């Protein structure tokens, strides 16, 4: 191993892998919460929806589209002042989280909206006919019936976030991207870049595998 990767510091590589996991998982958690809220609002305020409201729908759709349009590397730079105020620094895994969440939550929000649209209108009508409150319809019908789609959307988003953490690494967020760029690329030690690549691909596979398993388990259709 040391022959194949002469310049790799295994302890540093392990630490970087841990940071990538850390950033991905916490960013995913934030994305899940904000994405579901955004997706629900988009779905509910749409014309003909349960909380039909053109103005709110327009504002949220515009926000989502703008943030999805900004390339991630630029989004990080734009958010540096904000991150500074929030955390007092723009370096390290924690500092990457706001940018990661702002970058991926709108994306996941759209996937949530699509998942909710797939819920059978007839089932919602049946719940109304039973006298269900809107909150019951949201939690026990809409979210519950769309869980497999929400999970598979989350898997896709998780993989996008892993990619984003590597980009964030390039401006000093830590993780495998950071290690590959500052220790590998800038010193022309390409074995480090290669080792990081292998690990990132492995992490992506792990997330995809777990996501698929959960989706299949939950899907009773």
């Amino acid at each position, binding site marked *: 191993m040391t022959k194949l990767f002469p310049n790799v510091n295994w302890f540093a590589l392990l630490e970087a892998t841990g940071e990538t996991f850390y950033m991905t998982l916490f960013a995913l958690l934030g994305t899940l919460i904000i994405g579901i809220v955004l997706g629900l609002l988009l779905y509910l305020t749409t014309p003909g929806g349960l909380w039909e409201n053109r103005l709110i729908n327009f504002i949220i759709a515009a926000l989502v589209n703008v943030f999805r349009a900004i390339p991630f590397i630029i989004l990080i730079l734009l958010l540096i002042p904000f991150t500074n105020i929030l955390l007092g620094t723009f370096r390290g895994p924690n500092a990457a989280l706001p940018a990661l969440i702002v970058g991926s939550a709108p994306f996941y929000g759209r996937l949530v909206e699509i998942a909710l649209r797939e819920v059978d209108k*007839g089932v919602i009508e049946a719940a109304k*006919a039973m*006298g269900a409150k809107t909150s019951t319809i949201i939690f*026990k019908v809409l979210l519950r019936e769309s869980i497999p789609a929400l999970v598979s959307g989350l898997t896709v988003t998780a993989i996008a976030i892993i990619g984003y953490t590597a980009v964030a690494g390039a401006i000093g967020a830590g993780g495998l991207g950071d290690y590959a760029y500052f220790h590998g690329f800038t010193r022309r030690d390409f074995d480090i870049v290669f080792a990081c690549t292998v690990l990132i691909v492995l992490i992506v596979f792990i997330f995809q595998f777990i996501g698929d398993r959960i989706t299949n388990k939950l899907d009773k259709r």
Partner: protein
Amino acid sequence: MIEIDKLSKVFKGSSHDVQAVDQISLQIKKGEIFGVIGYSGAGKSTFIRLINRLEEPTAGTVSIDGQNITTLDKKALRLSRQEIGMIFQHFNLLWSRTVRENIAFPLEIAGLAKNERNERVNQLISLVGLSGKEDAYPSQLSGGQKQRVGIARALANNPKVLLCDEATSALDPETTDSILSLLIDINEKLGLTIILITHEMHVIQKICHNVAVMENGKIVEQGSVLDVFSHPQQPVTKKFVEQVMGKPDQDVSDEPFVQGIESGRVLKLQFVGETTNQALISRVAKQYEVELNIIQGNIKQTQAGAYGALYLHITGEDQVIDQAISFIRSTSVEVEVIDHD
């Protein structure tokens, strides 16, 4: 008792408005099975949704047991909806829940405690004949079983009325009959009022007491099922009756089966709500020295008895035949002697 007064629904369109339901007034008695029949686009689906306000009426009122549904606020409407069960053409079950959990859903909405829910669900499962399927998911059930879950779910909160929105239209004929029998059973056991809409006259004939025919958002004809079957007034009603009874008889005396007969007479017996347990034919055969041969017939059972016509070839002495005919006339069955050469 359900009173519907001048109920209307207009859908605002960009180019022109659509009057889906036009000033419908109806009275439906407690414990009655009331059918509304119409072709698609007649407005019957909108009509049934106006009753529990899944569609908001443009004008008119609906009252159930004296409670005016149309003026209720949101919260009161939710509560009164718990007393109005509804079943659907496509069942509308939650696929993420088992049979048991689907039936428990309206009970959760009504706020029943868990052990009470379980007890009620068990009763309902045996009522609709789904024992053994409690823990299956809807995707593992046949169409008929899914509709049984739908019915159990609709009955969970002991509703005053059951609305059936084309409840058998997605089912094959055999399954349709089993679901219709279940509805009759529930109607008789629980005394539940049922309002159903359908485009199949077969459904009306099998289970309804009274029927209204809808066309272009209006009720064009209504009455007891027998009246409507025996004296359809409107062209649309006649078409629906033909669905079940076939084309009305033309001049039967030209038919080969009448022409070929050389002796005796051909009788047409018209049944209108005749109670079937009279065994009319065998009584005639036993009491009179005549031979009876059934040559053609089309009789349907309705909730109010048999309806249809039966053609008999009767042979014997003329005098005895006359006696037999006057005996049949003394029952509620109408007799017509068909001439043949």
